[in-house]
C-alpha cells in the first residue's frame, strides 16, 4: 500500500521570486495524482519539495501505512554524455547494486535489471550507450530504474517528454497496474488527453493550488483555458478554490 501525502502551508522562494505560496492539501494513498499547471507554475518545484530535493517552508508529511516503503523517482531528464561508455545495463545495475560495475556481475541482479527493462520495452537495448539513446528511450530507462525496488510511492516528473506512442502506452499501462496494486503515484504531466486516460486525481498548481479533484471535474472544457493561465497576482486563486484540506 502506498502512502498518503499531507502538505501544510508549503511555500518556496528563490530569492525574491515566489514559486509556491501557502499550499495546503491532502493526497490520498493508493491513487494516481497528477499535478498540472502552466509553465513556471511550480509543478516540478512542488514535486521536488515532496521528495526533499529543495528547501521549502511549511510541512510535508509522507504518511506511510505501516513502515517506510520505497520511493521510485523519474526525473524530468538526466544528462548522459554520449562519449562515455555507459550502457543501459550499467545504469540500471548502478541503481540496484553496490557490487561495482567493473566487478563480475551477478546473474540474479542482471536478471532483475532485465525484467524491469522488459516492462518498459527496453530489454533489447541493454548494450546501447545511455548518451546515444533518444530522449524518449532515456525516459523509459529512467522509468525502469524507478521500478527496481518495487516502489510504494512513484514520483514522475514529465515522464512522457520525448516519448513515442509505444513508450507512452507502456508507461500508462504500468501506472494502471501500480494503482491496482494500491501504490501511490504522483506525476507532473502537461498532456491533457494523456491525463484523462490515466483517470486519477488532478491538482492544478499555479504558484498556489488552483483546483483539485477527479479528472472529469477538473479538466472540463469550460475550465481548462482559465486553469492554465499564467499567474497574474491574486486572480488565480479566485478561479476555483481548492477543495478542502482534510
Amino acid at each position, binding site marked *: 500500500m502506498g502512502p498518503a501525502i499531507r502538505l501544510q502551508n508549503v511555500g518556496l522562494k528563490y530569492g525574491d521570486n515566489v514559486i509556491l505560496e501557502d499550499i495546503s492539501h491532502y493526497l490520498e494513498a493508493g491513487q494516481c495524482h497528477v499535478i498540472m499547471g502552466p509553465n513556471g507554475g511550480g509543478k516540478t518545484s512542488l514535486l521536488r519539495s515532496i521528495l526533499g530535493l529543495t528547501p521549502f517552508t511549511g510541512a510535508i508529511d509522507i504518511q506511510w501505512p505501516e513502515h517506510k516503503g520505497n520511493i521510485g523517482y523519474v526525473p524530468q531528464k538526466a544528462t548522459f554524455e554520449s562519449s562515455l561508455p555507459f550502457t543501459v545495463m550499467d545504469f540500471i545495475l548502478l541503481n540496484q547494486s553496490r557490487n*561495482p560495475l567493473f566487478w563480475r556481475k551477478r546473474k540474479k541482479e542482471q536478471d532483475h535489471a532485465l525484467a524491469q527493462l522488459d516492462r518498459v520495452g527496453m530489454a533489447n537495448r541493454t548494450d546501447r550507450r545511455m548518451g546515444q539513446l533518444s530522449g524518449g528511450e532515456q525516459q523509459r530507462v529512467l522509468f525502469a530504474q524507478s521500478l527496481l525496488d518495487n516502489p510504494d510511492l512513484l514520483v514522475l516528473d514529465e515522464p512522457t517528454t520525448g516519448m513515442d506512442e509505444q513508450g507512452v502506452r507502456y508507461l500508462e499501462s504500468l501506472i494502471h497496474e501500480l494503482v491496482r496494486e494500491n501504490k501511490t503515484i504522483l506525476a507532473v504531466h502537461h498532456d491533457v488527453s494523456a491525463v484523462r486516460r490515466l483517470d486519477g486525481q488532478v491538482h492544478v498548481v499555479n504558484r498556489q493550488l488552483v483546483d483539485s479533484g477527479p479528472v472529469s471535474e477538473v479538466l472540463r472544457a469550460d475550465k481548462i483555458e482559465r486553469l492554465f493561465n499564467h499567474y497574474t497576482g491574486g486572480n488565480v486563486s479566485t478561479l476555483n478554490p481548492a477543495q478542502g484540506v482534510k
Partner: protein
Amino acid sequence: MDTIRHWAQLGVDAGWLSESFSYSFMVNAVVAAILLGPLLGGLGTLVIAKRLAFFSEAVGHAALTGIALGVLLGEPAENPIIGLFSFCMIFALLLHFVRNRTNVPYDTLVGVFLAFALAVGAALLMYVARKINIHMLENVLFGSILTITDYDLLILAVTCGVILLVLIPTFNRILLTCISPDIAKVRGYATNFYDYLFVMMITLVTIASVKIVGAVLVGALLLIPGATARLLTKNMGSFVLMSALLATISCLIGTILPMELKLPIPSGAAIIIVSTSFFLTATCYRIVRKG
C-alpha cells in the same frame, strides 16, 4: 621488499631480467608502478565521468606548495609528507566547499585556486631554496624513481589499500551521484558525503604519486589512460579495467624504458609520453575504423 629484490636479483642472475633490476631503486620503482597504475587508471574513469580532470591537475600543482610549506616548517627536504598531505587535503576540500557555494563556473574556480597555489608555492620556494637543491625541485615536479625508498613504498601500499577498500563498495554510488544527484538523493544516498569522499581519494592518490610521476604530471595520469580506454570500450566495466591496465602498462614502460635505454628522462615525463602514445594510437584507430 628484500624478498622481492632477492627474486629480482635471481632473475638477473638467470638472465630473465636485465641488469638494471639488480639496482634496488629499480625494483622499488617497478613495485610502485604496479601499486599505483591500477588505482590511477580506475579512479581516472570517475575523474572523466565527473569532469574533474582540471581539478586533479590543480591538486597536483598544490603538492608543490605543500612540499615547500613542509620544508619551511622543518620537515626533511626529501620527504615533507605532513606538509604535502595537509596542504593538498585542505586545498582540495576548500576548493570543493567553495564550489558548492558559489555560482562561479567550476573551471574558472579551479583556475583561480591553481594559480594561487602555484604562486604561493613559488614564493615559499624562495624561502626554502637554501635548504634544498634544484634537483629536488625537479624530482617533485616531474618524478624520480631514484628517490623511492622502502618507507615510500609502505606509505604507497597503505594508501592504495585504503583507497581500494573504500572505492570498491562506493564506486557505484559515487558514479550515480555524478550522473543523477537527484535519483541518488531519493535513494537515500548522502551525495555530499560521496562527493567529498571522492575528492579525498583523488587527493590521496595524487600525494602518493608525487614521487614517481611528479606534481605537474600526476593529473595527466589520472586522465590519459581513462581517455584512451573511453575510445576503446563499450561498457563501464571494461572502461575501468582497460583504463587500469593502460595506466599500469604506462607506469611500467615509463619506469623501465629510460633505464634500459639509458635516457636521462624523468620517470613522470616518460610515463606520460607512453600514456599519450597509447591515446594517440587509440584515436588514430577510431578515426581509421570510422572512416
